[in-house]
């Protein structure tokens, strides 16, 4: 009997379900061998969606076309995510299966992740600490790269727009099936000097000190020595400089920040008769240079992450497979707030057992991790799905999750607390999907939530495990797609209801028991409609966010519409496209973060060529 070897996850948008792929040839993504757990809800952004967002950041993409709530301080400014009512540091950000968040604060600024970097983006919703480790509490954002197809290709896009916006992206790829080279270059900048209304009775104000510039490249080399093995190297270098604008209650700001990032990943895999073995080694480094001439501040900080990961997937019986692996991570970090250059070591072993038969899938997952030798609570997870018939699947998942205290939480002076426990808890979800509609209900409790607070008898803020947060909600998605000869229509809509409440009354910070967390909307809805006729297409997106509570004041609900009209053409060996985009069509004056105005209506004109 021939051995059917299951390998590598492929995420499919339409069904939003995981599918194990046979290995026809070595068309290998750089993703982990860890498959998407049955019972988990995912959203995948395919090449079509990504191609229309080449000039944007992942923050822009997720904000306009997913249920992820993006907390943006403005165009080019800090942007973090909140998934299912979780905090920004409770979203794990993976690049080819490895976490790239800062160990200093647990965050990854999504505005610094250009969409062009990714060949595929997948959002995994819900707790999956057993799969992906610390921080995978609200969800996981997975950025993947893929080996180029045989042949040569060249793409170039350029766009210009309101507020001095200019961006260029180029992608070159070549492959002969054994060797493959992919180069991506990108640059964008904007003066970002938009006008905004702070008070209806007063004239509009112009945003100042808000310019940004971003440039970088991703260089990839793939080598396929045999049909059963592959080695690849990925180098992602990026520079980002941004001015930090004043708040609406600040006369001026001279603050600016320069970020450098260098991420190098080496990975290899080999396929055996019943095994697939994959090894990864990575070095991620980032530096931040924050300066504010006005107040005489310059703060340098940075970190390096060294990662080793070994995974094996074993198909040991028909329908059964096991996966196990180990990960070792060394962190180094320095900042003015630390006494010295810090080091932290994390070790983890993980594995899963999966059974698939007919329309039934079930997976048991487990992870044990140690932070500086101290054991983190054992993390189990169990997920299952069953297709009742072709277009109706029910699914459920139970998983434990955790988030380790960051280096800032542990070592910052004053207030770092070496006695902190990891945030941890259980999440459960279940739902069904069929005929383009899906509904998922979830409940999650997180104990030992880490907050900076003033403890009894202390005179400064410190990190403490002082509260618990309960999140529950319902997520609905509806996807419809149809093609008629030269026309197509695709509609994706979503509505999320999320209550995420603090469970223990606190005085400083002032949080009542049962109170919705700040910057966590209860209602969020989005719509993306893509209509095409021959080579002309119209993409209309709309996002609704209900009112939220900020640190100082409330923020009203927001409804923002964007539209993009594009025209493409194809000659024998080359093609191109041009587009016109309008952001915030109805010129809504709004803020996502209090005292941080967002731009009104803006235009963008762009064109691209491909060979």
């Amino acid at each position: 009997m021939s051995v059917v070897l299951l390998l590598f996850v492929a995420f499919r948008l339409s069904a939003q379900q995981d599918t194990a792929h046979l290995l026809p040839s070595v068309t290998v993504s750089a993703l982990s061998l860890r498959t998407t757990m049955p019972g988990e809800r995912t959203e995948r952004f395919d090449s079509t969606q990504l191609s229309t967002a080449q000039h944007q950041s992942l923050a822009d993409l997720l904000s306009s076309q997913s249920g992820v709530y993006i907390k943006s301080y403005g165009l080019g400014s800090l942007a973090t995510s909140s998934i299912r009512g979780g905090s920004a540091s409770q979203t794990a950000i993976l690049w080819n299966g490895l976490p790239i968040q800062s160990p200093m604060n647990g965050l990854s600024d999504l505005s610094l992740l250009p969409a062009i970097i990714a060949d595929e983006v997948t959002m995994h919703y819900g707790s999956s600490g057993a799969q992906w480790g610390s921080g995978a509490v609200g969800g996981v954002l997975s950025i993947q790269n893929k080996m180029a197809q045989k042949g040569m290709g060249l793409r170039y896009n350029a766009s210009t727009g309101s507020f001095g916006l200019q961006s260029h992206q180029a992608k070159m790829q070549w492959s002969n099936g054994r060797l493959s080279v992919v180069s991506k270059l990108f640059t964008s900048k904007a003066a970002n000097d938009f006008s905004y209304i702070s008070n209806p009775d007063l004239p509009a104000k112009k945003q100042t000190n808000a310019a940004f510039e971003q440039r970088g490249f991703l260089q990839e080399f793939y080598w396929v020595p045999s049909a059963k093995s592959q080695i690849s190297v990925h180098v992602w270098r990026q520079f980002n400089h941004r001015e930090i604008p004043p708040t609406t209650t600040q006369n001026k700001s001279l603050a600016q920040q320069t970020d450098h990032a260098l991420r190098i990943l080496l990975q290899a895999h080999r396929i055996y008769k019943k095994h697939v073995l994959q090894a990864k080694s990575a070095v991620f480094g980032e530096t931040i240079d924050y300066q504010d001439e006005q107040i005489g501040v310059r703060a340098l900080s940075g970190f390096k992450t060294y990662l080793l990961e070994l995974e094996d997937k074993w198909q040991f019986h028909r329908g059964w497979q096991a996966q196990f692996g180990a990960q070792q991570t060394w962190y180094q970090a320095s900042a003015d707030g630390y006494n010295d250059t810090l080091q932290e070591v994390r070790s983890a072993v993980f594995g899963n057992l999966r059974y698939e038969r007919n329309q039934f899938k079930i997976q048991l997952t487990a992870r044990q991790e140690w932070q500086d030798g101290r054991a983190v609570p054992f993390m189990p997870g169990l997920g299952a799905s069953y297709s009742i018939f072709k277009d109706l699947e029910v699914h459920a998942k139970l998983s434990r999750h955790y988030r380790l205290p960051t280096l800032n939480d542990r070592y910052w002076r004053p207030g770092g607390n070496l006695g902190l426990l990891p945030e941890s808890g259980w999440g459960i979800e279940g739902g069904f999907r069929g005929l383009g509609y899906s509904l998922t209900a979830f409940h999650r409790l997180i104990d030992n939530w880490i907050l900076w607070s003033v403890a009894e008898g202390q005179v400064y803020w410190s990190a403490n495990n002082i509260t618990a947060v309960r999140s529950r909600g319902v997520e609905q998605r509806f996807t419809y797609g149809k093609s008629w000869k030269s026309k197509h229509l695709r509609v994706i809509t979503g509505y999320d209801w999320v209550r995420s409440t603090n469970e223990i009354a606190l005085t400083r910070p002032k949080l009542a028991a049962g109170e919705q967390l700040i910057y966590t909307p209860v209602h969020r809805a989005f719509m993306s409609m893509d209509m095409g006729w021959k080579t002309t297409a119209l993409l209309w997106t709309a996002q609704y966010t209900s009112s939220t509570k900020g640190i100082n004041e409330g923020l009203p609900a927001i409804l923002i519409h964007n539209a993009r009209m594009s025209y493409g053409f194809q000659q024998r060996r080359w093609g191109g496209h041009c587009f016109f985009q309008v952001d915030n069509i109805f010129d809504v004056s709004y803020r996502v973060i209090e005292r941080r105005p967002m731009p009104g209506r803006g235009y963008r004109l762009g064109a691209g060529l491909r060979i």
Partner: protein
Amino acid sequence: MYTKTTFLIIFAVLVFSVTNAQTTSTFENISIPAAGFVDDSGISGVFQSGNTALHNYYDNQFFYWDGWAISNITDNTTPGFNNQYSAIAGKGFNNSANYAVGYSFAGNYIRLDGAAKGGVVNGIYVTNSTYTYYSMKDGDAFAKKFGGENGNDPDYFKLVIKKFKNGQLSTDSVAFYLADYRFANNANDYIIKDWTYVDLKPLGNVDSLVFYLNSSDNGTFGMNTPAYFCIDQITTADMVSSVANLEQDAPFSISPNPATDLLNVQWNGTAPADLQVFDATGRLVARQQVAQGSNPVYCGAWNDGVYYMLVAGRGMRLVKQ
């Protein structure tokens, strides 16, 4: 029973103490290193100047301070946290070099020592710190510009001074607005920039002073306005130790103290006694007999100031306001 000679001696001591004994804490006695400030008082936990002790907390692990620091920094133009030890006046009161900077969100304490212990604090000079001044004037990344986006927000930054007496925190207080934007006419809005005198006599006799800061700019994490202010020239109305002893175990009490129009003297003796009130110059301003129990004394006609009351040879200070 006190003899006439004894009474005269007591009176003389009292008059001397009330008229001549006052001490001013100028902080000029505190040595300040080249950095321009000292925020670690060492094992004593206080900066001692005159008859006052300013509480200071310094964390050697985190290099963090709280309470009071002593400074002679003159840079009053640089905003931000890095200039946290500076007074917006750019110098101490009356061109002196040193002044004290208060920082705390839990209250700043000043203990009265020596001859000032348990007595009246006449007053203190106060101004904003440079950090807080520019934060209120221009806003910063965390705190709002006073007046808000349209300039009409009724913002304020208030210093509230209370006292501890016999271990009890008073409900009475003296409030002083370090910034006040509550005026209907925005032209009247102000932020204190100079050393400004705050009269603390209304607090009456105190063991310790406690300073609290309140702002209209508050969020989930507490007050956004930087919790700093500066003081100089604490003047205490001291007394010689014999007078302080006279106050102890006095068989009568005065309420309210300070008083405005009428005060009550609770006389605990069984026999009637002679009550006399002297002003700061030693002039007798009132005299009457008191019987056991509550005895009203009308003081509406007295000038505002510190007085001394004698009953049966025992004394007690009181304040008329």
